[in-house]
């Protein structure tokens, strides 16, 4: 382990309790919704393939059973179905007229595809309602009950969002693969008196100027240097504690990070929870949870359009209805519609050197 010793008189003059004697930095090298898919979590089955969903839409939009059967036959044969494609690409209806379903998802008929009804899911008891709260999960790692993670309930039975920590969900593998090379890296900074011992810590979560740097085999690179972007929209600090090598946030505030329009222009999380395990190889992994606005999640998915819907995500407007249905926080005062959804993200991070942009380079001593 390395320590960064800031040879600063200013720091030396601060009261000891406020002086961070040890700092560790990380660059987030993997970020995705935390999923725990298994054979028993979708009692009504995993959502059908997108072609089958299209045929259901077609039926709802007035196609005859013969038409649907013919389209099914053609799809099975690998033949083109341009008339079906045209219908699906404009399956929204406003005043009876076809509209783009991705930009007008509310205009698309809700197929009422089911959400996940399994018992286990990663996350935190965000609302503090405890173990017996209906619809809550038990965390498979901590065994904590009363876990709120409705984003997993909403999307957990759709094919692109199924996966585990080891077997990445298709959507997130695709999205993170795009994001990590197109948005500046996200950084985690831990400060504490002695990060080898239990005690209070400060957790900083910021955005870098630089992209995450990868190795020649695509794996994230350890020990790269990143500068912190001073933009206040991506500066976050929380009080937390380190216990048995696991960092948690003890004062749950708001997190805001600039992201990438590919997924979402911003990542916002309210009532932030963190459980970050510091590993022996100097990397870290863990979970970050809270409530996040669900509409930006939809727009991030919707950006893929008709092509991406077929290739990656599956039924896009269906996500709109699922997210809206499972949203569980921040009700709109007029409509009563919840605008946020409980969510937990799985993160992996590699050790990094970090400094504020413009600050002098810290001296490093090897111990």
């Amino acid at each position, binding site marked *: 382990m390395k320590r960064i010793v800031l040879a600063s008189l200013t720091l030396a003059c601060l009261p000891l309790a406020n002086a961070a004697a040890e700092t560790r930095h990380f660059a987030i090298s993997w970020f995705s919704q935390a999923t725990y898919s298994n054979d028993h979590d979708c009692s009504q089955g995993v959502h059908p393939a997108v072609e089958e969903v299209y045929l259901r839409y077609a039926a709802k939009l007035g196609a005859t059973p013969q038409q649907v059967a013919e389209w099914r036959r053609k799809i099975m044969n690998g033949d083109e179905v341009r008339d079906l494609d045209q219908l699906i690409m404009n399956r929204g209806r406003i005043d009876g007229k076809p509209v783009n379903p991705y930009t007008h998802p509310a205009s698309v008929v809700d197929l009422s595809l089911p959400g996940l009804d399994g018992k286990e899911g990663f996350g935190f008891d965000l609302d503090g309602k405890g173990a017996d709260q209906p619809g809550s999960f038990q965390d498979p790692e901590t065994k904590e009950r009363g876990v709120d993670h409705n984003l997993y309930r909403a999307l957990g039975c759709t094919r692109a969002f199924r996966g585990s920590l080891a077997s990445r969900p298709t959507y997130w593998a695709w999205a993170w693969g795009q994001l990590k090379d197109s948005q500046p890296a996200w950084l985690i900074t831990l400060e504490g008196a002695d990060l080898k011992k239990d005690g209070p810590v400060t957790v900083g979560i910021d955005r870098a100027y630089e992209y995450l*740097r990868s*190795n*020649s085999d695509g794996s994230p*690179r350890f020990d790269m*240097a990143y500068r912190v972007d001073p933009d206040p929209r991506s500066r976050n600090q929380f009080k937390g504690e380190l216990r048995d090598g696991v960092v948690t946030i003890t004062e749950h505030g708001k997190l805001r990070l600039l992201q990438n329009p590919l997924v979402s222009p911003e990542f916002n999380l309210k009532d932030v929870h963190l459980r970050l395990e510091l590993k022996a190889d100097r990397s870290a992994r863990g979970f970050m949870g809270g409530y996040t606005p669900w509409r930006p999640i939809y727009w991030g998915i919707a950006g893929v359009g008709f092509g991406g819907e077929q290739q990656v995500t599956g039924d896009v407007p269906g996500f709109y209805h699922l997210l809206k249905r499972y949203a569980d926080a921040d009700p709109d005062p007029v409509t009563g519609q919840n605008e946020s959804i409980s969510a937990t993200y799985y993160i992996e991070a590699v050790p990094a*050197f970090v400094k504020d942009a413009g600050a002098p380079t810290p001296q*490093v001593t090897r111990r």
Partner: protein
Amino acid sequence: MSEAKMKKSRLIGAAVVVAVAAVTAVTLLPGSDDHKFSAGPSVTRRLTAEQYRNIVQDVFGGDIDLGGRFEPDMRVDGLLAVGASQVSITAAGMEQYDAMGRAVAAQAVDANHRDMLVPCKPASPVAADEKCAREFLSKVGRLLYRRPLTEEQLSAYLTAASEATRITGDFYQGLGLSLASMLSSPSFLFVEQIVEPDPEHKGGFRLDDYSVAAQLSFFLWNSAPDSMLLSAAAAGELQTRRGLERQVKRMMTSPRLEQGVRAFFVDQLRFDEFEVLAKDAALFPKFSAQAAADAREQTMKTVLDVVLTRNADYREIFTTRKTFLTPELGAIYQVPIFKEGPNGSPDEWQPYEFAADDPRGGILTQVAFTALHSPAGRGSPTLRGKAVREIALCQTVPPPPADVSFTEFENNTAHGASTARERLAAHATVPSCSGCHKIIDPIGFALENFDGAGEFRTTENGSPIDPTGEIDGISYRDAGGLGQAIYDNPAAVTCVVDRLSARALGRTPMKEERKWLRELRADFEKSGHRLPALMQEIALSDALYRVGPPKAAPANRLPPTEEIITAELERHHE
């Protein structure tokens, strides 16, 4: 261009090549046997790839794309610069040079460059203009051939340019085709030494004025003489002590000196081997192509900082903690090297000094050396130890026996051995292996804290690494101790003097030149091992410019060409 026209232009080019080769072939005037001084033979060196690039850049500018591949060089007595006098050009290589020459020439006269490079405008762009062509070809030819073109040479090129212009209907294309043939001429591709009787040593020979200029410039700048040096040669200044000193002083203060010093260390450190360096990405994921390029440059910058920027003791290259790093390298060295430019901009080099207690110090501990002298999947005390002896001390280590088996060493845990030291201990029990291993492995053990890609480690296969080592009876605790031992080793001084001299001569110094080498070494030590001082003394040495008689050719030896053999056979049939 039509096929017929191309064929014709090629024929013209080939004719010019032959004609020029005939005129500029090495001219060794007959000499008597009564000379009493010792001097080595003249040499003819093939341009190295870097020299070719430097000349093109010097003559035509840095934006000319060569777009070709060079013949492989050959290392002799530790240096490619010595091997350059023992290589030829294969038929396939000649095709490459021809293609490069055509590419360079086409760019030099294209619309983007002609206004800058061609010093005149033709009367008509579609017709031959001998006056303008003469002006351009004589100017460029002097720089490429390192001496003024003879009237016969120039006339041949003018005829070729004129004929090509007539065929193509384009003055610049004609000029370009003539220039292309110049670039594939032996007079350009080979640095020939033309000798003349030495008036100061009766019966002896010396390089002629222009050969002196080339000797100087390829040694100090790794490129062809500039116009000023050629003018000094034309005026006969280089044959006078004062004139030679004036030019050497000018060249030593030129920014191009760095080019020459770089070339020496690239050769001496065998950095040409970076072209084939690869690491197993699964084992050393940080070692990217960029990391390799940066590592090579890091060591070059470290060396140049010691020997040129700071003009410090040469031996400091083995101990200095001052270096230069990029963010890419910072990750491998596990130290913070932050970008300074905007995101996405190229990484900048930044000075960095390793702490006194850091295991890094000197070029032997840098990624370039440790990674270059390791196999793709692991480190190697043997290869590293051998490289230290051969590169830093100029010693020769024999190759392993032909029937040696590496299987036990390759097996990381053979006989319960976890570390390379343990595995090599078992390997060294084989009598035919132990002789060499005992003089090279203990050197390399000191570098075992650096894995096969040069990253620091304290364990191997879970076992702690013991970095103690020994060289020629001097023991040390770690890599820093090895660097200090090399610093203190007199062989390191002798090594750089010998190799630098060999580079300047283009050949290995002869037995008769030992006295000169001893003097160089003594003066080098007196200067505090300042490399520029050594280079200057070499550049001013008579030994560089005196030439002895050629060795007698073996009797009845036929030149190994098909044409001759065929002729012999025909005679036999008659």
